[in-house]
């Protein structure tokens, strides 16, 4: 449907080389990162060469408050194994109040997903500041571990 996804080659195909097959399964985590804190924190992790699993794909948003719960549902529908929403610590929001709304919205969202039968480990929200490269590394690593333990997400998926 939207952005006629069928037309796009899937990364699996790209790496369809034989050695790819013996790559262990790597979960796919979609991350929504606010531009001022978490995205900067992720960049810092890079600058400090902190290694973490290649499972996460960050989508840059100006503020965690820009993240619409519908984005999360859509990600799961399209086959994400986990979703992370991350922004500035309360009180540090570049837009002063955005993350307070994030907090309310996703406290509810988290519980709703759980209510619908999605394992809570698959949806996480975190505060990661621009100086917390190590925290970003640790969050992604942890989340990847947790999700690996759960295996690929089949719930809510409409792909394949």
């Amino acid at each position: 449907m939207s952005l006629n996804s069928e037309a796009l080659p899937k990364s699996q195909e790209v790496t369809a080389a034989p050695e790819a097959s013996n790559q262990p399964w790597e979960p796919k985590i979609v991350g929504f990162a606010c531009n001022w804190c978490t995205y900067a924190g992720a960049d810092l992790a890079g600058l400090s060469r902190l290694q973490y699993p290649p499972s996460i794909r960050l989508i840059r948003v100006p503020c965690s408050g820009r993240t619409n719960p519908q984005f999360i549902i859509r990600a799961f529908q399209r086959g994400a194994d986990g979703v992370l929403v991350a922004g500035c610590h309360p009180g540090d929001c570049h837009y002063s109040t955005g993350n307070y709304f994030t907090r309310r919205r996703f406290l509810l969202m988290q519980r709703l997903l759980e209510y619908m039968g999605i394992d809570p480990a698959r949806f996480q929200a975190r505060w990661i500041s621009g100086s917390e490269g190590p925290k970003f590394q640790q969050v992604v690593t942890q989340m990847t571990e947790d999700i690996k333990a759960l295996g690929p997400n089949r719930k809510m998926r409409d792909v394949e």
Partner: protein
Amino acid sequence: MRRVGVFVCHCGTNINGVVDCEKVAKTAAGFPNVAFATDYKYMCTEPGQDLIKNAIKEHNLDRVVVASCSPRMHEPTFRACIESGGLNPYLFEMANLREQCSWVHANNKELATVKAIDLVRKAVAKVVKNEPLQKSRISITKRALVIGGGVAGIQAALDIADAGNPVTIVEKEPSIGGRMAQIDKTFPTIDCSACILGPKMVDAAKHPNIEIISYAQVEHVDGYVGNFEVTIRKKARSVDLKKCTGCGTCQEKCPTKVDSEFDMKLGKRKAIYTPFPQAVPNKPVIDRVNCTKFKTGKCGICQKVCPVDAVDYEQQDELIIEKYGAIVVATGYQQFDHSAYGEYGYGKYPDVITGLHLERLINASGPTMGKIKRPSDHKIPETVAFIQCVGSRDEAKGHAYCSRTCCMYTAKHATLVSEKIPGSKSYVFYMDVRTPGKGYEEFYKRTTDEYGAQYIRGRVSKIYEKGDKLVVRGEDSLIGRPVEVEVDMVVLAVAMEPQSDAGELARILGISVDKDKWFTEAHPKLKPVETHTAGIFLAGAAQGPKDIPDSVAQAGAAASKAIGLLSKVEMETDAMVSSVDESRCSGCLICKGICPYKAIDAKMIQERVGGKMVERQVASVNKSLCQGCGACTVACRAGCLNLLGFTNEQILAEVEAVCL
């Protein structure tokens, strides 16, 4: 079908050392909408940028994706590049292959490459949905409003006015001057306050660019940066400023005496009065609460004696509405009320006074003509005890914060007392002596060494009257013994606290206050004089306790920010702002409450329904106030609020792309 160009940067080996850039480019070439894809060693270099510009022409690309480092690093660089290549700079996206891929997945080249491809696909998917954006421009009213006519307000006004901008000072009291006008001498130089403030007040009054509206208050503020519309209430002065010459006859003749606020109720003023002789404007007001004419209808002497018949009992409050480009808030502080301290007599002992009281007692033009006489029996005190941190650093009875000025003014007071009263003795009870400032520590040393003030480290637990003396009992925590001193007068260094109406003003201006009700700066370190509301700046103690030098310095800083703003004819606003699809907006305005910048407001539009024109409410975004956080877009259920550059379509496309 778009024509996207994808440019994969090796960044030397930074990216290429881990990610197979060639493979990434090749794969990208196969993506829908991608017309051209290539990789190159250094995209940000001159040749790299030329490569992009040429490709735009050769393959007539309409969108560009650069897969290199973090957009936080080079987004501006490449936007400029494609703009000079003939494209709208916003038809551009970056894929972060360095900070968020090669550098963090060095140990897994294969999956790093897979991720790199995903990130490029994501960028392509997004850029396809990008639309050309234009920065909008707003005009700026070349006039500033300064709220508060204390030393900070005056300084800010003078600086802004000297830069050639009209300035209005709105002062609550009948005269400008503020707290500094009440002070006798200033530390650490002991030069007379009036001698340095007076000239500034006169400069302000005479300045062609400065208009002083005293005895007035800001009642309402509309609009936004560059275009504030401010309603000022000029309280009825009962004196026609145009006619009045300030001769003062009315004040002499007025029969009604009232405690003078300016003299901390230690002296008297008339019912028609100027707060102090050097007042600016030096024209009186009638205090209608105490004036006999207003109370009983009789009297009316001032009107009779006024040679130019300027006295007007019928005068009404006047509302002035003016446009301003910038606002400086310099409303200062008020004194902490020490009646909270039972051990100091609940404010009931007449001879337990505050620092400002002492200032008036020392001041040559004060109620005692500069003779330090204690209030109760006008006896000259031979022994004086000073108690510091009354209401400061005391969460139980006062405030948690340090008021910053008390240590120094207490030292000053001790010095002045021993100068004015030969053979007198001063005791200072303190917690810590904090003297951070040029010449401050030296001044404090002089106070103890040359002027023989006796500093006792410890809190005072009780003050009680014994005959005509006051017994001050405390602890000397350095020797661990209780101490008792009998003195004639006690001076409390009471805390500075926000004006009681600070919260109300904050609401009117749409700025915020901190836990102690001081106005909050936009950033504690990097934006100390800005507020979260563009175009509104802070000066002086209104932002937190400050002494005169700091207030003046900050006033200058606030002024320069205001000048910078007013120096432009119009200012550019960010292109990535929210926009409303009015045809779909139902005007529920939930977005309005969520916007931290008050950028969203209701607007009425006309539309044709069933053959007749009807009015309908919709949300409308003020592009010059919107900072592009996008909070409103999520609040909007119908999704008819969208953040340009981060639209729902764009983000959904990204989600689709990375999930494949």
